[in-house]
């Protein structure tokens, strides 16, 4: 067989063939390596710039540096809102992968609620995958420690330290400070991508109206990152601008005294320095704990607040328009004097009932038998309706409305809170617009005692009353100073100058005398002034909530609280040199003299005689930086509040 035969080999030819083939192969190798070298030349020399840029982009990531939100102080430097370091769990969907891979594990570590998962899912649908989404805020130390052990299991899941907003007096100042809430997609649109790193934004109150100053400006660090996105070192930074600290005109003690003065009552009150427009205290009761809202309120908590018939979320100060009732009388009287329609000594006969020609139904006085001859001072101190019925008719609704607008009704006061309403100033135009009805003289009569279509806010009331006390109508405001950071000096926030409320100081003096007489024996508020160490002036009021017709037939006390009369009081003290003006509205409080006036007295006392409540021993006011110390870099931590030496009086 052939296989057993010896193979005939031509060694020389084979060697020759091999040399040829080897030479050819070597040529191929040279060409192949040449092509390779050429390709590398193409990448490394010809396209170098592009790849160098891409490499740079690869490793250099811009990492936002979130500034600490500005701290809010009261006028004496007590902290009303600050930041405490906390941890949250962020998930970057792109890196973490499908939730079923990590969610069950994380849910065990962090005890996630349905709501948090739901919220995350919602955010995941609307957020781009490379942006971290917060799964849970305020992780406990225990949870954080447990996660640290298992961290490697969860790529794309990170514990992030952040500063959590805290309101040590959440409920007391709920409608003043407001709260911050998590940023949603809509907020992002207004904030811009650059501020995406901010997690919270002011939603209500001061937090909202001064959000831009408080939040500061996000800075950036150029961070060299590895492929997992972990930063290796910082190669450059554009520092964050810390949020501005704010010093409010609010006095925490007075605020507390004011809230205490209400006791179980609901309503709203404002105290303002008539000389400056500084709001010293303001409450809308009941309040709510603003801390609940910071990281997203739970459905259950929210339902509780929403279902509460007292509407704790409703800010009565700027949103709650009520009929002012008789509290307007000093202002209408001033309009009478300023218009020249009345002299202080002009007298009107009060018989108890007032009739318009051709109208069967009459308008009554508080006293059935009437108050007899009434001049301007008495019309205020005894709250004589007839005087005002006639005055308004003499003025005419147009002029009446004009003066009332001058005193600040029908438009927002300009207080530095967002969303303030202007209320309603009754006028023929308004009535036509809203009800398609013409104006009757009876409407003027109603308007003259603050009933009818009137809607005013406590802030409007206090502003106009402060105007009477001081002579100037000023913009009520809550902020005194701000500073750009802990090192920066405090800078006063300029306020617009006040406008004279009357061209004739003597007219004002007469009105003041009328208001002072209210608080003296015979006046409607005399009980309130008993035993006071200072003089005060004021005006009581009772605002009917229900319509006139119903009211006639129903005993007010049988009505549910929110339908009963509002008890109102406006006033200022001391009469000689007013340093405080207040407006108090008590829901369901009945007559003005019975509930609102005593509350106002307590407020006056607290401010003028120093009868402030002692701070509770466990008051959670951090006096120093100790608690918020050790926050992330860039966190501006407050020292003890600014030394405020301004006297209260």
């Amino acid at each position, binding site marked *: 067989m052939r296989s057993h035969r010896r193979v005939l080999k031509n060694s020389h030819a084979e060697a020759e*063939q*091999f040399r040829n083939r080897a030479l050819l*192969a070597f040529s191929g*190798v040279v060409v192949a390596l040449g092509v*390779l070298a050429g390709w590398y030349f193409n990448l490394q*020399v010809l396209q170098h710039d592009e790849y160098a840029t891409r490499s740079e982009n690869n490793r250099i990531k811009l990492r936002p540096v979130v500034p600490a939100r500005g701290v809010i102080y009261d006028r004496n430097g007590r902290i009303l809102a600050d930041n405490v370091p906390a941890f949250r769990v962020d998930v970057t969907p792109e890196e973490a992968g499908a939730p079923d891979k990590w969610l069950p594990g994380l849910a065990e570590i962090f005890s996630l609620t349905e709501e948090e998962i739901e919220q995350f899912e919602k955010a995941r649908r609307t957020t781009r995958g490379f942006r971290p989404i917060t799964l849970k805020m305020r992780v406990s130390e225990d949870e954080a420690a447990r996660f640290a052990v298992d961290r490697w299991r969860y790529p794309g899941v990170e514990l992030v330290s952040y500063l959590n907003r805290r309101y040590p007096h959440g409920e007391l100042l709920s409608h003043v400070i407001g709260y911050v809430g998590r940023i949603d997609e809509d907020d992002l649109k207004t904030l811009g991508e650059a501020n995406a790193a901010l997690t919270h934004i002011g939603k209500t109150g001061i937090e909202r109206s001064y959000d831009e100053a408080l939040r500061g400006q996000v800075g950036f660090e150029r961070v060299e990152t590895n492929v997992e996105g972990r930063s290796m070192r910082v190669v450059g930074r554009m520092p964050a601008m810390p949020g501005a600290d704010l010093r409010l005109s609010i006095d925490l003690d007075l605020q507390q005294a004011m809230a205490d003065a209400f006791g179980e009552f609901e309503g709203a009150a404002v105290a303002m320095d008539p000389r400056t427009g500084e709001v010293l205290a303001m409450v809308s009761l009941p309040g709510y704990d603003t801390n609940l809202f910071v990281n997203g309120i739970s459905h259950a908590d929210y339902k509780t607040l929403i279902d509460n018939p007292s509407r704790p979320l409703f800010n009565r100060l700027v949103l709650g328009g009520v009929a002012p009732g008789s509290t307007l009388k000093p202002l209408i009287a001033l309009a009478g004097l300023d218009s020249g329609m009345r002299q202080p000594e002009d007298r009107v006969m009060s018989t108890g009932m007032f009739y318009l020609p051709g109208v069967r139904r009459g308008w009554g006085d508080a006293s059935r038998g009437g108050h007899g001859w009434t001049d301007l001072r008495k019309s205020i101190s005894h709250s004589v309706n007839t005087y005002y019925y006639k005055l308004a008719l003499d003025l005419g609704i147009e002029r009446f409305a004009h003066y009332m607008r001058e005193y600040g009704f029908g438009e927002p006061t300009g207080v530095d809170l967002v969303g303030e309403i202007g209320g309603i100033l009754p006028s023929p135009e308004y009535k036509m617009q809203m009800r398609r009805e013409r104006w009757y003289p009876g409407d003027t009569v109603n308007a003259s005692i603050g009933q009818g279509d009137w809607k005013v806010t406590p802030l409007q009331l206090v502003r106009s009353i402060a105007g009477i006390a001081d002579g100037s109508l000023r913009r009520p405001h809550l902020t005194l100073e701000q500073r750009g950071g802990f090192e920066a000096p405090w800078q006063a926030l300029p306020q617009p100058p006040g406008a004279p409320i009357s061209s004739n100081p003597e007219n004002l003096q007469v009105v003041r005398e009328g208001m002072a007489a209210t608080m003296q024996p015979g006046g409607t508020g005399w009980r309130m002034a008993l035993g006071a160490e200072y003089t005060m002036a004021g005006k009581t009021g009772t605002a009917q909530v229900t319509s006139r017709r119903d009211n006639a037939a129903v005993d007010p006390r049988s009505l549910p609280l929110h339908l009963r009369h509002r008890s109102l009081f406006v006033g200022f003290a001391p009469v000689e040199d007013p340093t405080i003006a207040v407006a108090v509205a008590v829901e369901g409080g009945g007559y003005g003299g019975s509930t609102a006036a005593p509350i106002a007295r307590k407020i006056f006392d607290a401010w003028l005689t120093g009868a402030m409540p002692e701070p509770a021993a466990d008051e959670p006011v951090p006096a120093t930086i100790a608690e918020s110390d050790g926050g992330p870099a860039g966190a501006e931590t407050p020292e003890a509040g600014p030394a405020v030496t301004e006297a209260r009086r």
Partner: protein
Amino acid sequence: MSLILRWLFDLGVRFGRTLDWMMLGALLALMGIGLVVLHSASGGSPHLVIAQGSRFAVGLGALWLMSRISPAQLRNWTPLVFGLTLVPLLAVLFIGTGRHGAHWINLGVIYFQPAELIKLSLPMMVAWYLNRRALPPRLDVVLVAAVIIAVPTALILLQPDFGTAMLVAVSGAFALYLAGLPWWWFGTAFAGVAAVAPAAWFWLLKPYQKDRIFTFLNPESDPLGAGWNIIQSKIAIGAGGLSGKGWGQGSQSHLNYIPEHTTDFIFAVLSEEFGWIGVVVVLALYLFVVGRCLWIAAEARDGYSRLLAGALGLAFCVYVIVNGGMIAGLLPVVGVPMPLLSYGGTSAVSLLAGLGVVMAVRVYKPVHAR
């Protein structure tokens, strides 16, 4: 004392006599560069460098050992060696471990990759077989050689390791080519591959391998998935520029953008840190090694040595081209290490052993021929 000195001297002479100093110089340069780049790629940790250095030492031992075996003796053992190396290749299918299949056998102390031995024993076997037949090979000879090549190739494909299988097959094919395989065979083989490719696509390739091919065709289509490796590796290479970022300065590798930057992708690290100049220097060293292998083969006096040395040299070069091409996006990604640069033990040892065989061809030439 003098006895010991004399013994050492003799040992040195004998050692020297069995080595091709020119090639060894090039290899030592490559290994040195490999360790330097590895030091940088591993983030300055000495562990990998020491581990790799000790493997190089073992490899150099293997090289010396192989260079001392005369090709005639090796030829006689060839069928036995080939048969013995098939055993672990079969065994790895049952007891092997690996990320994408069964590539390694755990020997307790080291992980051992049987396919690496075949890279040496298969060209030996083909050379042995062809040397016994008249050349250029006739049809029946080529078919038998094809079977010899196909058996280990198929076993490696079963692991599955497409890249190594192709390289092993190619090393056998080189022996056939150097033996003077008629050109029309190449046309036929090409047509055959084209015909078998669809079947291979459906039956042999694993999804990840298909991914690699898709990705090769269009890496930007999946920039965060399969295309990531190539894109990042190309960025590293391109960012290196003409003279590189400098040793230890390669951000792509140091920040872990380059995957497997100590093994398959280490050439990208070299490209980034030493630039095009570094690339050309290394490619020139490789070219010198290959050229030297072919030169030694051409000088050999027997067919077996010729074919074996030539095939080993060309196979060595294929690694360089495939690895260099794949990390630069020129060729599909197949798991092929860069000879003497990539971290990994078996590869370095088997490569050096193979080059030891080539050296033996040169060293034993006079003895054999005269």
